[in-house]
């Protein structure tokens, strides 16, 4: 909870600073855009959280986004597939990718980093192959399908700002993820194996199956994110669609309080972390005239956040240990 409070304060500060430095930050158009991007990135960040909880990593998210983002318009416009068939196909491929990752990692004992790094190269390569590096898009068609991502929901009593449709999806995904992680036995299994896989296995938990499930969730939500991303922007260039998205997702999760060592995650924190990333990017565009330092600023902010977190944690451990010892000797 303290972590969420910390990052919420950071988010509020960054928002205030940006609002003071730039008039356009609080404009309805900018806010709507910001919220929409946060929702889209939030979905893939929640996905990668499941893998991070197991102590693993998924570097292939951006490429899965690309594969789905290119695959969906390609199937619809170049091959004339029906909407349901195309959606089922791309989501099925995404889930299959996750299953493949999970099997390689648990059954063959390959390292998650290696498996998903190969995935990163592989899926983008495939997307560039079947599109022949040409931009694929919906043109003027599939308007109703696109409202899934571009639609707005008017809120009562608030003028000049409408809730972007992807928020509905993020809300559903986040609530389901939070319930799964905190209220079901399977969530508890994931947290346990992320902390100590051996002890979890010795306690009768099928750790392999749970790990596979985590990779399936990650890739499926990456695919779903990719679907919404391409519906939002209307077309995808295979060369750079979804580039670095895995890093945005992982960074958001880390900012939101996940430990890459595993076993620690709060969904709310991850979403606030995603928002912080997007506000930072927005601030750089609005306040500075130099877009090219975006990565430097984001990198520095995350590094500072992680260092602060580690220092606080060390302090807390030392204090707790001292207290435990005092109790022990006091009681004896």
């Amino acid at each position, binding site marked *: 909870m303290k972590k969420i409070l910390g990052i919420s304060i950071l988010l509020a500060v960054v928002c205030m600073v940006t609002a003071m430095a730039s008039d356009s930050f609080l404009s309805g158009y900018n806010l709507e855009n910001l919220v929409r991007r946060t929702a889209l990135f939030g979905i893939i960040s929640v996905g990668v959280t499941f893998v991070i909880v197991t102590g693993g990593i998924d570097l292939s998210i951006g490429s899965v986004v690309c594969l789905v983002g290119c695959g969906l318009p390609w199937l619809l416009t170049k091959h004339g597939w029906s909407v349901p068939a195309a959606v089922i196909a791309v989501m099925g491929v995404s889930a299959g990718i996750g299953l493949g990752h999970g099997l390689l990692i648990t059954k063959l004992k390959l390292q998650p980093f290696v498996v998903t790094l190969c995935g990163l190269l592989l899926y983008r390569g495939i997307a560039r192959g079947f599109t022949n590096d040409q931009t694929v898009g919906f043109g003027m068609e599939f308007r109703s399908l696109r409202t899934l991502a571009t639609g707005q929901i008017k809120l009562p009593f608030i003028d000049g700002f409408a809730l972007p449709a992807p928020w509905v999806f993020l809300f559903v995904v986040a609530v389901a993820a939070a319930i799964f992680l905190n209220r079901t*036995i399977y969530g*508890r*299994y994931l947290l346990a194996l992320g902390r100590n896989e051996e002890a979890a296995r010795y306690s*009768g938990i099928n750790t392999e199956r749970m790990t596979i499930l985590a990779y399936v969730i990650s890739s499926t939500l990456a695919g779903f994110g990719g679907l919404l991303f391409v519906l939002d922007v209307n077309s995808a260039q295979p060369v750079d669609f979804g580039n670095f998205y895995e890093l945005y997702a992982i960074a958001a999760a880390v900012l939101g309080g996940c430990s890459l060592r595993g076993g620690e995650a709060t969904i709310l924190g991850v979403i606030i972390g995603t928002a912080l990333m997007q506000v930072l990017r927005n601030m750089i565009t609005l306040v500075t005239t130099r877009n090219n330092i975006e990565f430097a600023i984001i990198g520095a902010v995350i590094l500072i956040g992680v260092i602060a977190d580690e220092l606080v944690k060390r302090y807390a451990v030392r204090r707790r240990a001292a207290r435990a010892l005092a109790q022990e000797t006091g009681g004896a």
Partner: protein
Amino acid sequence: MTAPLLEVRKLIKSFPGVRALKGVSLSLGRGELLAVIGENGAGKSTLMKILAGVQRPDSGEIALDGTTVELRNVHDSLRAGIALIHQELNLADNLDVAANIFLGREPLKGGLIDTARMRREARQFLEAVGLVVDPATLVSTLTIGHQQLVEIAKALSVNARVLIMDEPTSSLSSHEAENLFKVIRDLRSRGVSLVYVSHRLGEVRALADRVTVLRDGENAGNLEKTEIDHSRMVKLMVGRDLSQFYPHVPRKPGEVVLKVERLQTRAHPRHALSFEVRAGEIVGVAGLVGAGRTELLEALFGVLPAVGGVMRIGGCALAPRSPKEAIAAGLALVPEDRKKQGVILEMAVRENLCLARLRRDQRFGFLSPTGMARLSADMVAALRIKTPHDRQVVQFLSGGNQQKVVLGKWLALKPKVLLLDEPTRGVDIGAKQEIYRLMEELADQGVAILFVSSEMEEILGMSDRALVLHEGRLAGELARGALSEEAVMHLATGSERLAA
């Protein structure tokens, strides 16, 4: 009397949640062999680590030749002439013998390692420990006994005056152990002082000039050469007569609960193991390190599935492929490495206690918070787990209380067969007795108990019957009446084969 070479005064060392040393003192004369003995958790390892510079004491003094020294790290200790030979050897087994002896101190020529000189000099130290191998031999190809001699040669090469040996014979065959004793006596005659840590009281009696006994982080007493005998040592170690320390009462065993038939473990597939454990029976498993004791329990529990054979629990045959299957059949395992395999350190007491039962208590996949709270409260009370509240993170409990959490996790499942692997390792004496009492209670309730222990006294004190393993083979079974240290060691070191 001359001043002792090494003198330790009132060392205190605490770890989170536990006070490992509460003011321990010892002294070591020149050319003396001092045995340091004590039960698990008495503080022997901590003391040795402090002397070797691996850990720093909270307070207390260490003096060498009458002057106080500060041992801040391993380097300081080595420079002072103190070398530790750890129970698990610390050799780089991808390098050759000479490279290991001179690791970190390689002789150089023009900035590069002077291999020829290194090997030449290594040979001389190998001779000193009576090891006849080429210094260019890869360490991984040597037997454990020879690797240990390489470690000793390494210690000699830094001019160690004090050699600390932590459980040096725990993985040696009787022949290798005899050879080691010869080397140790030879070193002593040449003026090297030795601190010898062991569980094997027979060995201690044969080798030691003096014995210092630790109990629960404090000095329990010293024995001079003429006073060293088995019952005196044990009495000091456990603080009372042995019969009072181990609460074991033989009871009439019930039906066969666990029947193991021609089980072949993955580590020792050449040997098929067959034995039974009855309801209410406590069976000890003894043997040297590497005899396959842990592997036997892991095969039974499905951690490392057996490659052949079956077991029967109450008549149902099974060969579990995972702990999940073993648990479903009524088995439970308290594993050897508590922190890695037993508990999840960062999770709360309650979460750990409920972990194995989640599946049984679920409601359509959802956790049952009230059920968990009740189960946890019951277990904390029944096992007398000392914790401020069951939301406390397990990490901050003492070893004994952590072990009770592991036991509680399994007792919640009401197992038919309880497997225990070194159940009292790293546990203080109070908790130890509670664990023994708990084993007795469970046996009274008809649970079949199979426990592995490296502590001879524990095997002798707690078993109705003992299985002794030697290099993966079931070397023999000893009924309570036939149990003695000599009988167990005879089988464990494979001597009966040599005699035959």
